[in-house]
């Protein structure tokens, strides 16, 4: 009977320890997260986001590979906007192709000092970065590709982030709508890529410009980019965004 009180003390110590561990994660609760739309699954996604942002080092780089490691690479999602069902999407893309993407523009707006538009030639004049990385698709497959482009941070620097800026929202020609936080947006391996494997970005992989967010799952690396909007608040895209459509907004897992 004398052992009993001691056991309770240990148990209490254990509970206190677990509670303290949870407290570390609670620190992340001030961080904005996308709406859950009443779904427990979205709540789990947000927990993953908070856990990754709290427990993982923000500056870590994904592994980079050599030229000999390049592999075959499936193209999924939209693979040719010129044959899209929406006439305006197909028409716009055909015009871009006809002008060798001379008519394409990327607009940069929102919480920036100098909003504006970029042509492909202008983006290519900025200092570039080439990286050979592994694409991780939510479906379960992987592929290694070489990406050349301008680090997103360069474009954001040129536009001049307002002190209130926290997120970067992206829109594409094929009507995708998504956003990332500034930690991923300013990450050195986050690119606006216009080249793949030493050539111009192929149509099937998002020509003329796609995003590369290397520490998240493939679908965050949006293809056929048209707009970049810097925001103070998290914009999940509502009915057009991923969470409302059943997919995680943060997908670094």
């Amino acid at each position, binding site marked *: 009977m004398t052992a009993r009180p001691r056991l309770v003390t240990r148990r209490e110590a254990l509970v206190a320890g677990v509670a303290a561990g949870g407290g570390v994660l609670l620190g992340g609760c001030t961080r904005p997260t996308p709406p859950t739309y009443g779904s427990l699954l979205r709540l789990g996604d947000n927990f993953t986001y908070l856990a990754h942002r709290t427990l*993982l080092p923000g500056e870590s780089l994904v592994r980079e590979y050599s030229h000999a490691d390049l592999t075959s690479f499936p193209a999924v999602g939209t693979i040719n906007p010129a044959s899209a069902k929406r006439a305006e999407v197909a028409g716009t893309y055909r015009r871009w192709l006809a002008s060798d993407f001379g008519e394409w523009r990327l607009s940069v707006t929102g919480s920036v000092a100098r909003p504006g538009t970029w042509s492909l030639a202008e983006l290519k004049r900025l200092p570039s970065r080439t990286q050979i990385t592994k694409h991780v698709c939510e479906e379960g497959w*992987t592929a290694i590709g070489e990406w050349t482009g301008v680090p997103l941070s360069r474009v954001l620097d040129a536009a001049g982030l307002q002190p209130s800026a926290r997120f970067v929202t992206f829109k594409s020609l094929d009507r995708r709508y998504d956003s990332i936080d500034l930690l991923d947006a300013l990450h050195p391996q986050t690119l606006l890529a216009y080249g793949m494997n030493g050539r111009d970005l192929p149509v099937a992989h998002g020509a003329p410009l796609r995003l590369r967010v290397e520490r998240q799952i493939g679908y965050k690396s949006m293809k056929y980019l048209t707009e970049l909007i810097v925001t103070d608040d998290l914009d999940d895209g509502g009915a057009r965004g991923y969470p409302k459509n059943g997919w995680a907004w943060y997908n670094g897992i």
Partner: protein
Amino acid sequence: MTTRSTPVHARWVRLTHWVAAASVVALAFSGVEILMVHPRLYWGEVGNDLTPPILELPISRNHRHGGWTTPAPLLDGPGAPVSAGRTFEIFNQNGWGRSLHFLAGWMLVAAGLFYVLAGIIAGHFRRHFLGGREALSVAALWRDLRAHLRGFVPLPTGGPDYGPLQRISYVVVIFLVAPLLVLTGLTMSPAVAAAAPVLLDLFGGHQSARTLHFAAFAVLMLFFVAHVVMVIRSGLGRQVRAMTVGDRT
């Protein structure tokens, strides 16, 4: 009644058991869904529909669907890597599948950490996994093995008086299979692999980790089936009572 020789399951054992059980069911269900989306297994860093698999599982309409555009080379020269697009609408429910998998994964990790810490602090592992010299002898193991093979099932004790084979299976699942599942799962996270690239080296790459994740899952399911069969054969009602309300009668 001597309480010392026939202890009941501690409250924290019962609680973590059921949280873990619910998590494993959700993980298995969502895990099979995720595997159905891409029922091909590979070795190394890379594997996709345009590279050779080591195993293809005939578990969804995605199995060898063959709906691909003519491959276009991604580099110059013969044998260059290629790109191709799908002409086939694949089965893909990974929106809820992946999110449920990770939600249940967090639950299992929380319950598992609590269980292991409590098991060490409360002396659960020392007393019921390692304790009782006679149960750990080769002779006892041999006896237990022969009894199981003959289909002889001992009466349930309603507590943690585990037999030799039972102890071995619990130790293998708790300290080998579960950590392997968690670590191979973490290896597949691009954010975690960036923070801890050693995981990629440990398992030989992303796709090797995915294949090992599946292999460990298969072992866990064997345990799951054996566990449920033994619970039923040794007295379902009594065992469930013992693991819920903690009753020994």
